């Protein structure tokens, strides 16, 4: 599978080759020295909290323990409580479903826009780029606010226009209250914000495909879709993989947009995704033990989902 060496996007030669051992550097101290700052920061500010989380997940850890009361060991109670709680599975299922929809939409639309940019002249391409750039640079809190305002119950643009064009009274219609409406708007926010990264990256990748290759395909009479699937896609396969994996991680862990949109409106019970669920369990209700356990269950599930990618990476890194 590791066809990385043929990747056109990177400078030629020896792309994937991990450094062939150069025996000149005998001491392994140099790389560790270079890594020391990272190891220190991650060890203290990620490693230690993870260990704390692991410990907490076997304890009854509530607000009183935050104030310094000794915590009680409860064995696997937190884990059994979660795994037998239908609310948790509902949240998980909802998160995964949302992630799938968002990733597919982002990838398809992002790729289409990248293909569009290939066809455009300089001026129009700049125009599209500017639009993408604006959307990309919008902070999630700002963009959630904007979309919340567009769909506002009382004065929002959508209700106003609907009232005007349908003749019915839409003022007061709440889009966020219905979970389906909530997730539709959430999908708008996320996909709108995520497409630019995908589109820019895909465009950069596609534009490095040698022109002769595409022309040859055209002369062979390949249709647009066939050209894309058979000629372009192989060239950008790694890019697509990376983008999909990144989008999956990001969309599954999505937090600020859901959190802020719930503040604007909506039924929390029915719109929680895994991130806000953990937040509410811990910070909101003070069940830090349970929240930690959920986090570990979640990581386990993520690992299962991405095991292929992780293993492939490990194989590539074979020394």
């Amino acid at each position, binding site marked *: 599978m590791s066809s990385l060496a043929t990747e056109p996007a990177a400078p030629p030669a020896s792309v994937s080759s991990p450094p062939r051992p150069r025996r000149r550097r005998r001491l392994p101290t140099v790389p560790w020295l270079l890594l020391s700052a990272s190891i220190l920061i991650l060890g203290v500010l990620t490693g230690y909290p993870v260990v704390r989380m692991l410990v907490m997940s076997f304890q009854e850890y*509530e*607000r*009183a323990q*935050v*104030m*310094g*009361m000794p915590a009680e060991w409860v064995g696997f109670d937190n884990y059994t409580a979660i795994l037998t709680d239908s609310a948790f599975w509902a949240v998980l299922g909802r998160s995964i479903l949302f992630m799938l929809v968002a990733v597919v939409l982002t990838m398809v639309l992002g790729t289409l826009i990248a293909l569009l940019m290939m066809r455009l002249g300089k001026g129009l391409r700049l125009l599209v780029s500017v639009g993408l750039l604006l959307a990309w640079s919008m902070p999630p809190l700002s963009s959630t606010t904007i979309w919340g305002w567009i769909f506002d*119950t*009382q004065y929002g643009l959508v209700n106003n226009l609907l009232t005007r064009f349908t003749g019915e009274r839409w003022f*007061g*219609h*709440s889009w*966020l*209250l219905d979970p389906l409406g909530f997730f539709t708007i959430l999908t708008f926010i996320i996909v709108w914000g995520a497409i630019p990264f995908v589109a820019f990256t895909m465009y950069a990748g596609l534009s490095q495909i040698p022109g002769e290759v595409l022309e040859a395909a055209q002369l062979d009479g390949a249709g647009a879709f066939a050209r894309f699937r058979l000629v372009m896609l192989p060239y950008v396969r790694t890019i697509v993989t990376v983008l999909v994996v990144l989008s999956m991680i990001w969309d599954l862990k999505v937090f600020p947009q859901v959190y802020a949109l719930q*503040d604007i*409106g*909506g*039924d*929390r*019970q029915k719109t929680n995704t895994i991130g806000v669920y953990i937040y*509410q369990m811990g*910070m*909101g*209700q*003070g069940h830090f033990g349970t929240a930690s356990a959920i986090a570990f269950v979640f990581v386990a599930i993520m690992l299962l989902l991405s095991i292929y990618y992780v293993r492939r990476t490990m194989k590539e890194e074979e020394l």
Partner: protein
Amino acid sequence: MRKNRLVAVTAAASMTLAMGACASGADAADDGGPSTGEVRVWLVGTDTPDEARDYLKTTFEEQNEGSTLVIEEQSWDGLVDKYTTALAGSDAPDVVEVGNTQASAFTSNGYFSEITADEFEELGGSDLLPGFVEAGDWEGAHYALPYYAGSRAVFYSPQLVDGEPPATLDEYVDAAKDMYKKGKFSGMWWPGQDWYNALPFIWENGGYIAEPADDGSWEAGFSTPGGIAGLTQIQDLMLNASNAPADGQETDLQVPFCEGKIGYLSAPTWIQWSINAPEEPESDDGVPGCGSTYGGDLEAFALPGKDGGAAQVFAGGSNIAIAKKSEQRDLAYSALKIMLSDEYQSIIAGIGLIPAKVSLSGDVPQENSIGAAGVEAAAGAKLTPATPKWADVEAQNVLQTQFTRLANGDDVEQVAADIDSQIESILNG
């Protein structure tokens, strides 16, 4: 190049900021003994009037020479989340306001410093609002004391509503529905998320939020016959008397009221100041009122009960406590003492809030119907279930969410069953 300089500048700025924060922290630690220091008071929302804030600061700094008092305003939303960490940290504030229904989440977990029996007597003792004292107690000890109670009254403008105030709850409902029939007019204003105004309907019809069962677990009571009757009445009003947004919150009520589109407005009594404010706000961020039109002749009455008299209404309000992690408890106590002093509480009463001391309730201005209505309503005030887990019910917006469903026309019994199961799962969880 330019970017590099920018980075350097901001890095330098951040260093100074960081050092500044450290320095002030060190100050507090050094001077934090019995004599002087900086006391930080966290007040929530804008309910405490500026006059009271100024009085607190000046009086405190007079009484404790060399010390300063800083008021830092917090917002109600996400308050429990913030206190959970902030009060457990090394830079904890000294005195904090907390919603009366949220208090037990902290009193039960050791977040507040205990108020001894002697101190309790000195601060007012049995004169303090009993329901609020109870809300701040934990296992027989005092932790959070009453700060103020909100009280609610039903406002209306005689320009828009004719006749005498209704005598019973049913009459009130009918009157509101009649006005709605006039068209483009809300007989009453009921934003879907408003659960404070919903509770009286539950209570008056014989329902309850949650009560302890024999085995010690909590049993929610929205599905009881009384609860269903109350919810049905609420939904009837939401659908047939109100044009408020189905998912709206109880914020800035003066806006629709001043448009002259509301008959009855059940709201905290201090809303009167927002309504009869001038049309042109005096400050940049002031909210316009309608003092010259519908706000000019504002009247109010206490929500009537099922069988006449005043209904049992929800007693919203605040408690005040000293943070356990306060490094200068003496000074904090001194600030707390001022906040519960007769002078300070009179200022609170002056804007229409119910003061923390029963003996001062006469200070609530009653020359007009509004003050009288507020005091009458406060007499029948009721609280939410006395358990630390109630704060979680609020933190999860359980009632807000479910009432929006009512406003959207969902089936009453289904909603009642959902409320009950959610409340029980949290309170017994």
